[in-house]
């Protein structure tokens, strides 16, 4: 999956993050080659979102090292930001702007051609409703726009926090070429559905109270471990 001698897309070593007295993440170490998919599993509050925000350079780790495409974070965050796409719990869209205006704003921030906006609105079937303020759209529609926003600049690393939340099966199928394996991007994804996440993953990171309890291939992460993790 990695190309030639390209560095791994993600290298984590002894990563830790605290919020006051609470440990959100600790001792997280792994490597993920380019083009691979990492599924991050764990119960609510296990540290999944914190890990994604650190990878997105939105949070600083308190300990450990992190490299994306060989670039250390947060020191070289500026160099990798344009290569990341984050689809988190918040759609990162202004409610009083239309979907099209939001995407155009992001396109300008990322210096992407505006034709890409129409291309993506068509891809997520929002051409007709794309001119309405986001606050008037259903949650599923907003999520489709959020997907379009996350992939607008053709990121090489997709950070997907519950990417199919609020999407019906048809909409989930619609966004599959954009955020699924077919996108060709390296992916880090979390999901409330561990079986679905395991089916997509090349590597699994299972977190419990911020600590990794499993890092490895999905086939080694059996049904018993899934039950234990979510017990």
């Amino acid at each position, binding site marked *: 999956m990695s190309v030639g001698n390209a560095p791994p897309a993600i290298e984590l070593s002894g990563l830790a993050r605290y919020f006051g007295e609470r440990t959100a993440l600790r001792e997280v170490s792994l490597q993920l080659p380019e083009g691979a998919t990492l599924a991050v599993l764990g119960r609510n509050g296990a540290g999944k979102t914190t890990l994604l925000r650190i990878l*997105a350079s939105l949070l600083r780790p308190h300990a450990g090292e992190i490299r994306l495409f060989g670039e250390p974070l947060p020191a070289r965050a*500026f160099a990798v930001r*344009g290569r990341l796409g984050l689809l988190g719990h*918040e759609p*990162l869209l*202004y409610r009083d702007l239309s979907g099209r205006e939001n995407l155009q704003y*992001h396109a300008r921030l990322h210096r992407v051609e505006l034709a890409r906006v129409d291309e993506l609105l068509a891809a997520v079937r929002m051409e007709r409703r794309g001119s309405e303020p986001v606050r008037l759209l259903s949650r599923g529609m907003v999520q489709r726009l959020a997907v379009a926003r996350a992939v607008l600049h053709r990121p090489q690393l997709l950070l997907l926090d519950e990417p199919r939340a609020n999407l019906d099966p048809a909409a989930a199928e619609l966004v599959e070429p954009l955020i699924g394996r077919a996108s060709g991007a390296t992916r880090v994804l979390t999901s409330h559905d561990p079986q679905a996440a395991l089916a997509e993953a090349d590597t699994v990171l299972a977190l419990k109270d911020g600590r990794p309890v499993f890092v490895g291939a999905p086939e080694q992460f059996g049904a018993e471990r899934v039950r234990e993790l979510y017990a």
Partner: protein
Amino acid sequence: MVVLRKDLRLELRTWETLPAMVLFALVTFVIFHFGLNRTTISGQLAAGVLTVTVLFAAMLGINRLFVAEREQGGFDAFLLAPVDRTTMLVAKSAGLFLFLCVLEVVAVPAFALFLLGPPLGPALPGLLVVLVLANLGLSVIGTLVSAIAVHTRARDLIGPLLGLPLLVPALIATARAAGPLLAASHRASGPPGKWLLILALYDVVFGLLAYAVFDFLLED
């Protein structure tokens, strides 16, 4: 320009900030009118009333400057883009500067109508220079304070508590520079150079300070 254009579009769509600032200024003039129990004022008193009113109206805009970024994920979206973070400082300051200019386009004639004794016309060119310099300082400090306050739970309190003391030097310099212009005799050919210089220096110093620290304010 991208962030500024987005902010102006949001304001034109929602009208959440500018009308509130203008209305506040107009109501304040009415309150001063009755509170001072004077039909007209001039000189230093007039300059003080005008400056204080603009300052308090500006606080409304300052408090709302980053609300959409905070509540609708604009900070994260901006931080994820390969854009220099000081772009946000420049865009927000420019937006606030424009809001203040629009406020004054309405508020200054209203002030002349409700309170000011001497005619506004002869004072206008000098007053324009004073207000532009004051707006620059208000915009930069306001953006800085708003970026700090928006990360706190009590942002509506932190904004004025932090901003007003920092803006006192600008308030003094603006009022002193505008005072002679609004005097009944209007003998002054222009605003006092000393106070204009202080105002300009204040703008430069806080502009540099804001540029130096703004990156850190956007950190987690």
